[in-house]
């Protein structure tokens, strides 16, 4: 049991509510009263997360944007657990942006569960405590004699019991508790179970949930056209043919990110100047967009894929100067080594390709903006819009809608700013929609990367030295203090960066999404050169980091890695994979969670077929068990698909792949037939799972494919290294 002292933390305040309810808001910057959604039925709002209805039903507010990671189910599960209600009596609503009430409303970095864990438990526990106090007062008994279960308070001695809905009306004048007691995890009834995703029924029935689906009265459809190449901007527009299309309202140019404004990262945008078409319906506007005749001018030279590769190769070749981290003397160790292995790994730009393209609703009236749509960071959207448009933040509201995928793409708010500027210009509410082509050629890509590993092995087959130098567009992928730092006497790591006019952004597990696969492929090759089993070899390194770590700042816990490997070893029966099965292993730590994977490949008609993936996860306490498994399965498919097929190439700044006819995504029947996920049960506070399951995948895949085909894979997309000359659609 954990005691949380509320008054000391000073974040709960009581606010009177018209209608006799009570708001216990979590105030971080001040006091904003909340209004219950349905005043008639809500009898108590102990805080911004909880609404108790007179019939005992509970509405829980979900503060974090839902992008497919299952947070709209998981966060309310935690609140419901501490409030001690039955999950069957809970309904969930998405909260709008309200940073005064909610600590963190961002879907990014797999941090929501980790950073909100104590906050939302406390919210639930505070609500429960207030209801118990009301019952204690009503029955004139000490609160310590009361128990709760599934939304009912009981007093065993007197035999009294009362439902939350009934006592809630009498709790409105109860003081916010000074201290609450959180449950002992062994008493959890909801956390660790597998309720369905709270929107699943609406999804399978095709209910309007997404930004693309919202149709508000009087809304004008808007589309943008950005330059056909990075480094260009519009020079002149001939819109006569576009305007001739029925239903077209207007054609104009906007500058969304003026040059004199230095925006934050979330304002990242390669194309500040855009041509806009507005009209009555989507199809008209799409047609008008095609009918535009635009002349473009070059601002900075267009780049080519080959030049990126050459420049990156130059950066990581040669002697490493001023490493980001150095332990021992790697150069001296390489000279002494019996064997030295040096390998280069690379990967191309990747688009996010959320199935729902970028879109946003904005209605600017005077100095107010009403926003609605899919975003991972509503607050950042508000910040950058306020900055660019000079509208006070408090005048900007953001209604958060379920997003048809995020993967980092919706951390960037440019499309929201665009919608607002268009709305201001035409003086009407606007729904801005990107076509797939707009979306895929806009940039914000996962950077292209290149990394060189070098290992020295002594005569006794011990790894005595390892260096890694990496680079990528707008930043290198190397995390110098992560494993294998700490496990090798002589170690050095260094990041370089390539400047480019192609914009890059966070893409599911930034940097890790590439470096994990490269590192785990390399270690596999080193293990082989040492004549060691790849599992034993990794274990040896973790043992070393545990018992006799090198250096001080090692950004991982070797004990957790060891437990993780032991779990997967046992579950997949390592070493007994059976005839015809070729296995690859990989393990990585990022976003505070630990993941190990084994992929089983079989050769069929001399082609590799993925049979099964095993995954061991240490993300501490698991909140929503089946939801967590779903994330792992998605991460594995994502990792396989992008490592095998994902490829953005460019020529003079023009992106070669503009839609799914030229860009191959993983499809049915191409991933493993089965995925089996196991969780380390260690009771540690939970960490996130939206990203961590993806990064190790390319490593496990490459290692399995090597055993199946005899070919080591170094450069993504792997399909081109496996003998295909081009990426054909699946």
């Amino acid at each position: 049991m954990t005691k949380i002292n509320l008054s000391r933390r000073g974040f709960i305040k009581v606010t009177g509510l018209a209608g006799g309810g009570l708001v216990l808001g979590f105030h971080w910057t001040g006091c904003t009263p909340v209004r219950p959604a349905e005043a008639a039925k809500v009898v108590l709002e102990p805080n911004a997360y909880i609404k108790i209805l007179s019939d005992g039903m509970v509405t829980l507010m979900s503060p974090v944007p839902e992008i497919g990671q299952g947070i709209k189910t998981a966060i309310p599960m935690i609140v419901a657990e501490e409030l001690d209600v039955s999950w069957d009596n809970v309904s969930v609503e998405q909260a709008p942006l309200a940073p005064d009430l909610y600590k963190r409303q961002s879907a990014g970095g797999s941090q929501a569960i980790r950073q909100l864990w104590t906050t939302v438990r406390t919210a639930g526990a505070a609500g429960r405590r207030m209801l118990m106090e009301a019952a204690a007062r009503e029955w004139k008994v000490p609160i310590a004699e009361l128990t709760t279960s599934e939304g009912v308070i009981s007093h065993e001695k007197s035999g009294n019991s009362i439902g939350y809905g009934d006592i809630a009306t009498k709790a409105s004048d109860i003081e916010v508790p000074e201290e609450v007691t959180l449950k002992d995890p062994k008493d959890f009834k909801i956390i660790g179970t597998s309720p369905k995703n709270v929107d699943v029924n609406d999804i399978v029935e095709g209910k309007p949930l997404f930004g693309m689906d919202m149709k508000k009265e009087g809304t004008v459809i808007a589309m943008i056209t950005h330059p056909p190449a990075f480094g260009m901007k519009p020079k002149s527009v001939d819109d006569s043919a576009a305007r001739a299309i029925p239903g077209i309202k207007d054609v104009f140019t906007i500058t969304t990110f003026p040059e004199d404004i230095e925006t934050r990262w979330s304002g990242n945008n390669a194309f500040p100047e855009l041509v806009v078409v507005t009209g009555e319906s989507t199809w008209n506007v799409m047609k008008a967009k095609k009918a535009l005749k635009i002349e473009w001018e070059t601002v900075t030279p267009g780049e080519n894929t080959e030049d990126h590769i050459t420049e990156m190769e130059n950066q990581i070749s040669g002697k490493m100067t001023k490493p980001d981290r150095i332990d021992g003397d790697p150069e001296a160790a390489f000279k002494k080594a019996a064997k030295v292995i040096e390998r280069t790994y690379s990967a191309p730009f990747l688009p996010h390709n959320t199935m729902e393209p970028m879109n946003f609703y904005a209605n600017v009236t005077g100095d107010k903006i009403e926003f609605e749509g899919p975003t991972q960071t509503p607050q950042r959207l508000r910040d950058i819009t306020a900055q660019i448009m000079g509208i006070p933040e408090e005048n900007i509201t953001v209604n958060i809608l379920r997003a048809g995928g995020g993967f980092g793409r919706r951390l960037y708010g440019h499309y929201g700013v665009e919608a607002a500027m268009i709305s201001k210009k035409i003086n009407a509410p606007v729904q801005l929609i990107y076509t797939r082509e707009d979306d895929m050629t806009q940039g914000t890509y996962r950077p292209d990367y290149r990394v060189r590993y070098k290992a020295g092995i002594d005569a006794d087959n011990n790894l005595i030295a390892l260096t890694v130098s990496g680079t990528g567009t707008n930043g290198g992928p190397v995390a110098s203090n992560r494993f294998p730092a700490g496990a090798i006497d002589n170690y050095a790591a260094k990041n370089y960066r390539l400047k480019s006019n192609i914009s890059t952004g966070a893409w599911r597990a930034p940097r890790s999404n590439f470096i994990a696969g490269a590192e785990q492929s390399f270690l596999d090759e080193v293990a082989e050169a040492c004549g060691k089993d790849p599992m034993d070899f990794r274990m040896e390194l973790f043992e070393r980091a545990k018992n006799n770590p090198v250096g001080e700042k090692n950004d991982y816990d070797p004990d957790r890695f060891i437990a993780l490997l032991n779990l997967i070893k046992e579950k997949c029966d390592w070493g007994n994979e059976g005839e015809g099965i070729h296995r690859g292993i990989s393990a990585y730590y990022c976003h505070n969670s630990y993941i190990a994977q084994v992929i089983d490949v079989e050769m069929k008609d001399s082609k590799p077929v993925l049979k099964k993936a095993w995954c061991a996860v240490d993300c501490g306490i698991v909140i929503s068990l089946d939801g967590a498994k779903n994330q792992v399965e998605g991460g594995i498919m994502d990792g396989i698909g992008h490592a095998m097929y994902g490829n953005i190439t460019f020529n003079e700044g023009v992106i070669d792949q503009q839609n799914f006819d030229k860009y191959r995504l993983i499809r049915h029947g191409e991933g493993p037939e089965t995925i089996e996920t196991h969780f380390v049960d260690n009771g540690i506070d939970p960490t996130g799972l939206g990203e961590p399951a993806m990064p190790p995948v390319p490593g496990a895949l490459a290692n399995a494919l090597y055993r199946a085909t005899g070919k080591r894979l170094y450069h993504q997309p792997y399909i081109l290294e496996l003998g295909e000359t081009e990426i054909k659609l699946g």
Partner: protein
Amino acid sequence: MTSISLKVNGKAYEIEAEDDIPLLWALRDHVGLVGTKYSCGIAQCGSCTVLVNGVATRSCVMPAKSLGDAEIITIEGLAENGGKSLQEAWVEHDTPQCGYCQAGQIISAAGLLKSNPNPTDDEIDTAMKGNVCRCGSYVRIKAAIKTAIKKGGVIA
């Protein structure tokens, strides 16, 4: 602009739209059924799949005016048209992640089961190959299709 008649989920609609409007945008912008999704617009992802006379069809490239009195079933009308077991199986396996592709996935599965009530694994993969799930829920989609078959499949 032209007048186009459509029969969607058993109801007749008369819409005023552009002559070349694809069924997808006729449904979303004119009929007012937004369960059918746009993602690629070029018949490469399956998000926009509807049933036209029982056949899974990419509505983003299907001219609305070519349909005449064909029976169009969208995700909104699937439950009343024999697809309830599929939707229930989707829920049972808690299949969606973001959910955006799932209407198209379910409709494609319905089209498959209408023409082939007992498909093999390979037949499922082939029939579903046109439907991308960016979230990678493929294992669950397949499991859901098999569950639906066990529970009675699609009643045509």
